[in-house]
């Protein structure tokens, strides 16, 4: 369905663009129809940049994104516009995704207007149908974004994303700014809709609990590189990479009976570019080879 091939993105900054920052480096994965791949990582690991490249919103420095075997960065404008109806993106902060000066209905019908599909009643019917699917009612249509809560807005955004009948969704931390109970609502709706419309999904999150609920497969990212990829269950039951293991160990679970290995030591890491494995500074298994070479993904 969709494939990322050696995606890399570097940002250049400083006087005369001397400094280089590899936000994403050689990231590859495949997503099948109806499948959810979870891109898991901490803040600043490049997962959002990767998601934006998949959605065709940022051009990669090298590598390509294949959608149905076609490189989306080679699309002509018309094909790109068509692609925009096939792939939709959902953002982290629902408060900022809708034009604050427009009522909900206007924002909702915008995709139809852009693609010339809006025909009065038909468009309205489709909107009504979707708005009920996500658990809201027509009374919300005449409101302004600031009058709705984050959970309600995220439902609206979900409805808008589905309006063009896409087959792929990039969801960038769609619930991380929401409360737990609202998160449960949104994730439940999301899962239902995904089944109903046979959606493939790239789900970006930092939350291991959420990843576990939603993912078929998980890819773990750290400082721009992919460290581990596999079936969700395998990753949780048998993590191979030391970083993934550390991440799972430090996870606090909502159970007061459990033993929580709280660790108040802080490691201080440097941000500089260096050779070798990105995780070597924090790794308990560090050896000489980690200093010299950057490991590649292996089965």
């Amino acid at each position, binding site marked *: 369905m969709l494939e990322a091939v050696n995606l890399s993105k570097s940002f250049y*900054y*400083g*006087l005369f663009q001397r*400094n280089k920052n590899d936000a994403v480096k050689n990231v590859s994965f495949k997503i099948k129809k109806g499948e959810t791949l979870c891109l898991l990582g901490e803040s600043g690991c490049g997962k959002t940049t990767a998601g934006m490249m998949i959605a065709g919103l940022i051009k990669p420095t090298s590598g390509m994104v294949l959608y149905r075997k076609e490189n989306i960065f080679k699309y002509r404008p018309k094909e790109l516009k068509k692609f925009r109806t096939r792939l939709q993106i959902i953002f982290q902060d629902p408060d900022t995704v809708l034009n604050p000066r427009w009522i909900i209905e206007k924002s909702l019908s915008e995709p139809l207007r852009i693609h010339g599909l809006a025909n009065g009643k038909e468009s309205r019917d489709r909107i009504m149908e979707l708005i009920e699917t996500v658990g809201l009612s027509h009374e919300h249509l005449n409101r302004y974004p600031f009058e709705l809560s984050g959970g309600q807005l995220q439902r609206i955004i979900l409805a808008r994303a589905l309006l063009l009948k896409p087959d792929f969704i990039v969801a960038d931390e769609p619930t991380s700014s929401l409360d737990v109970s609202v998160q449960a609502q949104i994730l439940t709706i999301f899962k239902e809709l995904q089944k109903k419309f046979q959606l493939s999904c790239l789900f970006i999150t930092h939350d291991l609990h959420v990843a576990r609920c939603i993912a078929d497969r998980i890819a773990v990212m750290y400082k721009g590189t992919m460290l581990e990829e596999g079936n969700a269950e395998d990753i949780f039951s048998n993590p191979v990479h030391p970083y993934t293991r550390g991440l799972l160990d430090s996870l606090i679970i909502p159970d007061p009976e459990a033993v929580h290995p709280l660790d108040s030591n802080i490691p201080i890491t440097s941000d500089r570019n260096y050779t070798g494995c990105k995780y070597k500074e924090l790794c308990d298994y560090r050896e000489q080879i980690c200093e010299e070479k950057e490991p590649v993904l292996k089965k």
Partner: protein
Amino acid sequence: MGKIIIQRLVISILVMLAASFLSYFFLYMAPGDPAVSIIKSQTGREPTQAEIEIFRENRNLNIPLLDNITIWFGMLSKGDLGISVRTGEPVLHEFKDRFGATFLLAVISLVLAVLIAFPLGVLAATRPGSVVDHVTRVIGLGILSIPEFWLGLMLMVLFSLTLKWLPSFGYGTIYHFILPTVTLSTGMSALLMRLMRASMLEVLNLDYIKMARSKGLNRPLIIWKHAFRNALIPVITIIGTQFGHLLAGTIIIETVFSWPGIGKYLVDSIYARDYPVIQGFVFIIAAMFVVINLLVDLSYAYLDPRIRFEQGRN
């Protein structure tokens, strides 16, 4: 930090080059033959063809624009800004002789404005919605609506003509300073007060002020150490950009009070079409302006450690 200085220096040099280029460019675009108008304004009669030719030769008006600019830059690099047509003195001398008076006027006015504006702005911000706040707000807005030169004239009428307390124009004693500086600093202080108030209000609502309160620090310490310092940063930048405004104000105020500074001289030169002076003065003023902006950037960096340690992002 070093990066910022380099960037600013490059811009500064460009500004000055642009300033001199522009002044030359406009000179060439001037209506009629400058030679004719200048000689006419000097002698008061129609110049003869020979006079015009000599003048052109002397002023390098016969050679093309670009060559002329090259010559001017050549002179510039030796610190030579040419000779005033009106007085026959070197432009640089004329400038030096008058700069002190203008500088004093500008600096005293600025200091006065800051002394009035900062406490008032802080006071208004710490009591939002109070009588002080409303009064300063409306009065500030009102003062900003008064043209400086008119205010100067009115003060002159009131204090020199009616009350006979102060000299109406001239330069020399401390009394001569009072009216011009008061005129200049009035508008400036209204502006700075409003800026200070807005900036302070914004800072006082930030989380770190709550944090400072939760540490048990007393109010003066919170206001001056935690809030004021951070509120100052945007105000300082404005002061920098306002320096141009201040210079402009000085020019007009000097004309009103017959203040022997660069402003009055510049305006007189414009009346007399004394091109070398116009050109030279604009160049020097642009240069001064650039230096001030540079200083503002530096003080900005001093006040805001986030900039001081900026390693370069974008």
